[in-house]
């Protein structure tokens, strides 16, 4: 099977590669780029552990071939924030004990970013409904919901500050 040349912009870095068409985006990230924060928890597109952002929208990287992402922007958990500069959602998951084994966490955080992007002030009910594509077996979701609420509040505040700064 012939390899296909692609250039995918991964966490801001244009990344050229030769990939087999059947390689899923998640396999490309994990096996070729060693970005192992994106996980595989199922093979039917239910669990959401593989969630990444594609051109700014959250997608399941297990249901997308790497070749399809050619020329696109992919952001993974490794790109959303770092220990030195945690994204507010990452900080909130830590603060609120929104994780235990940590395996679903990267996907949860990427999905949380999508929820807040669509609605900066989601209600508890909306958060629960919008988490329908992400499974956590450890936390009972209680602290995940709290984490997303609190991250959204922080982000609104930051957004307001930034808006104010821009106005000034």
């Amino acid at each position, binding site marked *: *099977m*012939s390899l*296909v040349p692609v250039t995918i912009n991964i966490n801001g870095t244009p990344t050229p590669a030769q990939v*087999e*068409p*059947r390689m*899923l985006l998640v*396999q490309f990230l994990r096996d070729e780029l060693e970005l192992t924060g994106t996980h*595989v928890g199922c*093979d*039917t*597109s*239910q669990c*959401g552990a593989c*969630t990444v952002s*594609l051109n700014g*929208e*959250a*997608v*399941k990287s*297990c*249901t*997308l*071939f790497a*070749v*399809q992402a*050619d020329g696109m922007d992919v952001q993974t958990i490794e790109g959303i924030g770092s220990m030195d500069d945690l994204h507010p959602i990452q900080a909130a998951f830590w603060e609120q004990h929104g994780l235990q084994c940590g395996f679903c966490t990267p996907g949860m955080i990427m*999905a949380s970013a*999508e*929820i807040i992007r*669509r609605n900066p002030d989601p209600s508890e009910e909306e958060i629960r409904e*919008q*988490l*329908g*594509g*992400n499974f956590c077996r450890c936390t009972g979701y209680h602290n995940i919901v709290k984490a997303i609420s609190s991250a959204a509040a922080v982000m609104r505040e930051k957004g307001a500050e930034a808006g104010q700064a821009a106005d000034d």
Partner: protein
Amino acid sequence: MYTTPFDYHRAVNLDDALKMLADNPDAKLLAGGHSLIPTMKLRLASPSALIDISALDELRGIRTDGDMLILGAGVTHAELLYDKTVAEYAPLMPDMARWVGDPMVRNRGTVGGVVAHADPAADYPAGLLTLGASFKLKSAGGERVVGVDDYFKGMFETALQEGEIVTEIHIPRQAGKGAYEKFRHPASHYAIVGVAALASPEGVKVAMTGAGPKAVRLTQVEQAIGSDLSDENIKSATENAVDAGSLLSDRFASAEYRAHLAGVLAKRALMRVK
């Protein structure tokens, strides 16, 4: 996790896709991929080639032509859910789109994919039946428009011929209130039963998906309702209104239960359109 090997073709435009499809009858079209890729991973589908139409601009876009809302087949569920034009012309569409999969699936999955795939448990067919939608189908040899009543033939079966692609979904401007109610499978989130209702000046239309091999209009409910959307009439018109005989029956939901749910959901949808 791995599919069987295949040749990947990213179509540069629609004509290119149609030509590739005509040249290789063993190829499959790849749009949102949310039905196809999981099936390929289980090796229940092993097409020799995939023709990727997910990035085709010609299939994107939401526009209007007079009173007709025209959705490119590549419009995603999320676009349907959040687009202002869709909300204005056919608010029943976002009322269904919110029930599709989850946010990630909605960002990727397409309305054309749902129409082409004709999964019996898909949401849109119910609403499309009430809205009187039609579909533009293109092949290397030409194009045609097929009305929704003639399009869905059965489980995974449609009027699509080999070599044809769904390119547009045409939806007449929604006149009157519409509502979609769904009872989903707790695991897959697919519809055990979904019912769409539309109260337009020409009359009330009700259609059901999920319960049988394909989405159908609930004509007996429509007739019983007539134009009387009083609480009492809605209740009496929907109670025991659906015959279990032709419905699917499985481990999770028997035909009898599906029939009952169809009545319940029809009632709920009708209560919302009155």
